[in-house]
């Protein structure tokens, strides 16, 4: 595994550093206390920076952290100190944009918690056990969205492509904003 580009954790915290959804892929943080301490560290060290227009980066204690903020949500992707910074940034961008698509552009803590199932599925589609599964936001959102079609609706190719179409439409809209 040592050589494969890998993600150690993905964190989605609120504006006070509290968890919205987090996912760890490494044994560096064996207990919940260690995880919380890490999140606190990451949050306080990045709090004062302005990561709203472009992703920012910081390094401490062998961890590389790329992050981006929107409204009251703080997105983080962390990796080892030898990881390629641009790969982590790509994962972050994929996660960030996919969440934007899934929440239809209303990205804030409240919306994220109300659609927590989508956020969790989204995390599940981006990274599996530290290995990057997908980084393209529309594909990620498409995969997640295809799951949340109303019960009983027959699954056909068409509904998936419809979901993808809505997703794309939202992406374009958010880009034009």
């Amino acid at each position, binding site marked *: *595994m040592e*050589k*494969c*580009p890998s993600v150690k954790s993905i964190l989605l915290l609120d504006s006070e550093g509290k*968890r919205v*959804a*987090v996912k760890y892929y490494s044994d560096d943080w064996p207990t*919940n206390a260690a*995880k*919380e301490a890490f999140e606190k560290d990451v949050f306080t060290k990045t709090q004062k*920076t*302005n990561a709203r227009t*472009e*992703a*920012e*980066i*910081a*390094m*401490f*204690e*062998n961890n590389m952290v*790329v992050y981006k903020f929107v409204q009251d949500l703080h997105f983080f992707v962390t990796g080892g*100190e030898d990881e*390629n*910074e*641009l*790969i*982590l*940034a*790509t994962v972050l961008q994929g996660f960030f944009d996919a969440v934007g698509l*899934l929440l239809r552009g209303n990205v804030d*803590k*409240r919306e994220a*918690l*109300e*659609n*927590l*199932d*989508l956020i*969790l*599925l989204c995390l*599940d589609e981006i990274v*599996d*056990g530290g*290995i*990057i*599964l*997908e*980084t393209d936001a529309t594909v990620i959102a498409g*995969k997640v969205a*295809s*799951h*949340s*079609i109303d*019960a*009983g609706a027959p*699954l056909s190719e068409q509904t998936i492509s419809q979901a993808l179409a809505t997703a794309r439409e939202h992406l374009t809209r958010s880009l034009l904003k």
Partner: protein
Amino acid sequence: MAQPFMKKDDDLDDEAEYSPFLGIEKWAALQEARVFNDPQLDPRRCCQVITKLLYLLNQGETFTKTESTEVFFAVTKLFQSIDLGLRRMVYLMIKELSPCADEVIIVTSSLMKDMNSKTDMYRANSIRVLCRITDGTLLTQIERYLKQAIVDKNPVVASAALVSGIHLLQTNPEIVKRWSNEVQEAMQSRVALVQFHALALLHQIRLNDRLAVSKLVTSLTKGTVRSPLAQCLLIRYISQVICDSAGNTPPGERPFYDYLDSCLRRGGEMVNFEAARAITELNGVTNQELTPAITVLQYFLLSSNPVKKFAAIRTLNKVAMTHPMAVTSCNIEMESLISDQNRSIATLAITTLLKTGNESSIDRLMKQITNFMSEIADEFKIVVVEAIRSLCMKFPLKYRSLMNFLSNILREEGGFEYKKAIADSIVILIRDMPDAKESGLLHLCEFIEDCEFTYLSTQILHFLGIEGPTTADPSKYIRYIYNRVHLENATVRASAVSTLAKFGAMVDSLKPRIFVLLRRCLFDADDEVRDRATLYMNTLGADGAVVETGGDASEFLFKSLDVPLVNLETSLKNYEPSDKHFDISSVPKEVKVKPLAEKKAPSKKPTGLGAPRRGPTSTGTVDAYERLLSSIPEFSSFGKLFKSSSPVELTEAETEYAVTVVKHIFDHHVVFQYNCTNTIPEQFLENVTVIVDASEAEEFSEVASKPLRSLPYDSPGQTFVAFEKPEGVPAAGKFSNILRFIVKEVDPSTGETDDDGVDDEYQLEELEVVAADYMQKVGVSNFLNAWENMNPDSERIDEYGLGQRESLADAVNAVINLLGMQPCEGTGVVPSNSRSHACLLSGVFIGNVKVLVRLSFGIDGQKEVAMKLAVRSDDESISNAIHEIVASG
């Protein structure tokens, strides 16, 4: 899309703290999970309940064994529903619960059904779930499906199977290795990510077969790897192959360099950067190879994206440690980054500039840094201070402006670690640069006037006591020191008293005044301060009887305590007040065996901001050796240590006793330092010596040896043997070694040692002293200048035939290693396929004689190598000696 879990309430809407999970409790959520058992399933309701449970787990809540079993069984019921969204949440829930083996069986059939479903999403996700929770026995049952999935035409399914394969390889390698053919087929996929996952798995499968990896990499560099991630992966494998094949490649040729170079320009920025980084990390990279990579990084520096800037500057910072000249082309871009908003980037830029800048740019840089220091956090400031310290070592002439800078920042606000870094830097500068001593000491004096850290004050006072008395005008420090006695806490007062006494002991003219001051300290409120003052008054002879300070007094004041503090403490505790005085010589000097339980956990690697502090470590170890050797009375008369070799192993890895040897070269002597480690917990060794047979080293005669009193388990110890040798001659010889000791049995659980010991011996490998041991690798920055400045009369030229060689590079390396000199201006690397090569070497020979060597090599069709060697040195006889070394080597 999923519905909110609560009805939106207008009042709640305005409240900032509103959360759908507000006040949610574990027991209530578990209770709700009963809906999974309803005969009429409501998929939406079930989804909500699962989300609640996942939320709790995500917040760090844990379920007991019974709770999670109950939830697991309830969740398995949900496989009845055909709702796609619900199924997906069921998958997530199962992964989170990580069920035990008995439970896995329950869901296996459901998951296997999904694996063969027509729906791609079912297939992909059920594979990932099943592979996550499965064990070896089950894996053989589903292996067939997994192989099919790897070559599935749906990329999501293929990726799911491949990624699962990567994880399973850790636990069930023999099974996954059988999938090689399918994985290879997946490599051909048109879909980028499938290719990436297939490559990762294929490499993992072949990891232990170097030849196969090399073949795989070779074929891929010719083919088309489309995915950027796969290309990054390939670049990492290539670096590994290059690293493994170092030494047995054709002359001067760097395999795959062309491929890395081409990746600098295609495949997207992620790939460009990965390739640039790989090139900078190549072993013995030349300036020519570096240039294209540096150009790419330079381009990144101009980006507006912080991540790209950071990545580039971090890499350049590392390059600057070894190849500062290669990075100078980016100086302009880096200077504009000093004011970057991201402080990590700014700090990296400034520390890189400090390494690449030349002497003339320092003043300007220091000015810029001064503006910038107040804006950054302490941890970054420490990095800057360290960079300045090494800069000062590099440009000693500039010490004045650098010292001023350090003293200025010392006066500003800052935490302990930061102040300590500055004070340490000043101390090092004073130690290494006699010119800087006076001003440095005064800066430190001023600092303790207003220092809030007791530890730093006492350290500086101690240092003042050692350095101050030998300055031109010691009296000017007295005021600063005595002020401490008035104004500080007891700890600082006590150390100020000690420092005063040191001045008194060293400077006779000051003695009467010191006594006046010490006498005042006799009325201090603190016991320790009073005791010290009384003690020093007596040792220095304040009663007026003794005028000259005796050797005893100064030894008492300046020599460090030669007994372990722990032992002294126990001895003092055991001492019962009686007529007999406590005798310090009765304190044992050996460290006791610690019980095994106390073994320290491996400490975490400390790094800050990605700048590895390689710095002046080599000089650091020499310092440490010098201190170690001069502390041993038998060796203290040998004079200044000329060179210490790096440790040479005399035992195979993982034997009972691990022994390495360090060769210390002095003018007249050679000392072998044997570092021994006892790796057997059941043994305790005593009286460890090395018996050296020097019959094959005629010019050496043994003069002293220092046995190691005891060698407990896993705490390394040293034993020494010293030889006399003729001065100035590069005497060479072979030594055979036998480790001799008394072995005692130890009970590892209690740490108790058996009293009876047995004599034993252990054969070590031979060790050689060669000519290169007498040569220090010291580079010169401008070889031709240095060469011209040497006396041409000392030049000796001769030609040699080196016989048949594998390659030109092989011959060049052999000569460099034989002489043990530093290749200059990158001439140590032979360009590929060249028929001739010129190599410039520089070094300092024993007796501090500077030596420069120019070598010209030529190779003919039969691989016969000829060499012309020209030497200039400060001493003609040394020039001749160099030729003798080559002639006899």
